[in-house]
């Protein structure tokens, strides 16, 4: 490919960093609760450009090339603190779009719906993104929970002041092939032809609660209440609809950002930076002739001429983006985490960082 940039694959690496943690290896393998050396798969991030800090800009150095993986070859089961997650049903169907779910027969289904932030000013939307690309949707990863393994976990119960739980959520990877880079506020060196992976909400997972009594016993609140979901004792299915659908082969314009991705890592709440939609219901545009149509905004206030959108990207991309991406897992700060195993947080996590602008 190109030779004059060593920063080629940061989006991929940042996204695959989660996979590395989830599966112990980037591509799968034995589920485990120990990240082991997975953090080594994360690309180092060089010192940010001083003048760009306020705008969320940085120079990113990437040396990892983990893009050459096959999203469909990963394990279809993962064990988590409160149960196993099984997505093998996806292998039996053709999933041409994010919204395609395997049929649910014989299991109770819990549907997780959300309310999302809606913006009506296109400049606000663009300002919150740090990468704007035209791309072809290539493939989707298998759904998983936001834990080390991708296995099932639930937030705990706390009565103490200052303890804030992190939500358990269902995510999957989206693989796209870049056809044009319209804006790159982190200067990654991404070019047409590169493959990119970002994380999208949504998916369907069959959960087999494991040893509920033991897990519950470890997570009872002071009044003996049950954690969310853990009272379920039989297999059930969680279905989380994607906020915006994507289909394989689709030509899209995407507004993405590297942002905090929270989960249960090593039995502790923590987060890492992942490439994800800048706004989950509004990040996708379809180019129809000279018009850029925001498919998540049927009202039309974000739809405009393609030329005007490109101009806006040139002017405002990343000007209101979040904190600078950092490598590795950052413990939730300052609270002690939920620890379903009543153990200490793993000793290989980064030291708490107080400078990420939260």
């Amino acid at each position, binding site marked *: 490919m190109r030779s004059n940039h060593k920063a080629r694959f940061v989006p991929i690496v940042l996204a695959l960093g989660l996979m590395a943690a989830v599966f112990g290896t980037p591509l799968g393998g034995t589920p485990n609760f120990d990240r082991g050396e997975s953090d080594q798969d994360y690309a180092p991030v060089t010192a940010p450009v001083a003048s760009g800090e306020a705008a969320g800009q940085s120079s990113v150095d990437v040396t990892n090339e983990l893009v050459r993986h096959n999203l469909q070859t990963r394990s279809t089961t993962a064990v988590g603190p409160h149960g196993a997650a099984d997505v093998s049903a996806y292998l039996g169907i053709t999933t041409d779009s994010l919204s395609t779910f395997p049929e649910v027969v014989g299991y109770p289904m819990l549907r997780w719906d959300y309310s999302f932030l809606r913006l009506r000013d296109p400049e606000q939307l663009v300002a919150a993104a740090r990468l704007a690309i035209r791309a072809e949707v290539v493939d989707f990863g298998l759904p998983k929970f936001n834990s080390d393994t991708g296995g099932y976990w639930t937030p705990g119960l706390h009565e103490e002041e200052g303890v804030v739980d992190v939500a358990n959520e269902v995510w999957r990877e989206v693989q796209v092939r870049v056809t044009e880079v319209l804006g790159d506020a982190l200067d990654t060196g991404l070019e047409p032809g590169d493959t990119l992976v970002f994380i999208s909400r949504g998916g369907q997972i069959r959960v087999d609660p494991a040893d509920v009594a033991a897990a519950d016993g470890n997570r009872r609140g002071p009044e003996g209440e049950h954690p969310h979901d853990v009272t*379920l004792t039989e297999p059930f299915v969680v279905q989380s609809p994607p906020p915006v659908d994507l289909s394989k082969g689709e030509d899209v314009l995407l507004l993405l950002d590297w942002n905090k991705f929270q989960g249960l890592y090593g039995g502790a709440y923590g987060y890492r930076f992942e490439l994800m*939609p800048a706004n989950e219901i509004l990040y996708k545009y379809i180019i129809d002739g000279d018009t850029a149509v925001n498919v998540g905004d049927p009202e039309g206030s974000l739809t405009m001429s393609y030329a005007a959108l490109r101009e806006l990207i040139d002017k405002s991309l990343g000007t209101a983006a979040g904190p600078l991406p950092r490598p590795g897992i950052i413990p939730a700060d300052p609270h002690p985490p939920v620890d379903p195993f009543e153990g200490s947080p793993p000793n290989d996590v980064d030291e708490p960082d107080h400078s990420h602008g*939260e």
Partner: protein
Amino acid sequence: MVVIPQYSVAPRRLSLLRSFVALALAGALLVPASVAQAHTGECLTDLLYGSDPNCRGHWQDFHTQYHWNGELSQAHHSGERDRFLSAATSWQNASGAGPWHVHFDSTKPTHVSMVNFNGSVLGTGRPAREDGNDHIPQMQGAAGEGDGTTGLWLRHDIGELICQGTTACSWYTGTGTPGGAQLDAWGVWMEELGHAQNITHHLPPGHSSAHDHTMSGSTTPGTTDKRNLTSHEADHACDPYELTHSSSC
């Protein structure tokens, strides 16, 4: 006026009995007229859309009892708690006698919390599963009658979202009009309570997306639109499992 019948019992026992009878009468007055239908079978599939008639109609048998969990139980989140009650009352009013008898019970497992979310989520309402006896999401069953696993969550790390230019979002917990970078907690709770009834995202027929309808799936800063249920949405409070309902309150 309620007259407590006299019994020939010891004074202390009489006092206890009076208390018991009074409580029972009070309970009878508070519990809405039951709309219970006979449970005739299991309801393990297609729960969401209620095509199975066994999956309908039982939730109104129960009172709603909430437990403020974790961070939401703290004094500085009293505004978020108050607006949750506003939202529950709105749904209750929409359903007439309705199921939304709001009170607190620290020992019951229907949790209302503030948690950190990924992405641009503002909140979520996750319905309880059926348990073989009560097939639709009950906010809280009597002892032994249900899982009570409904989760109602509002975003805690709201300040990390961008609402207006470089202005971070915040919750508006009053009853007036939120500022331009504020999100109406009352309105978002409305949607989450709808999800807890298994109502999915949709726009009322014939309505424009320019208005933040309660179950639209999104909330715009600075608006209070979602506080108000359309008649279409209110009908869900009477027939929560059907997206295309035929009955009204």
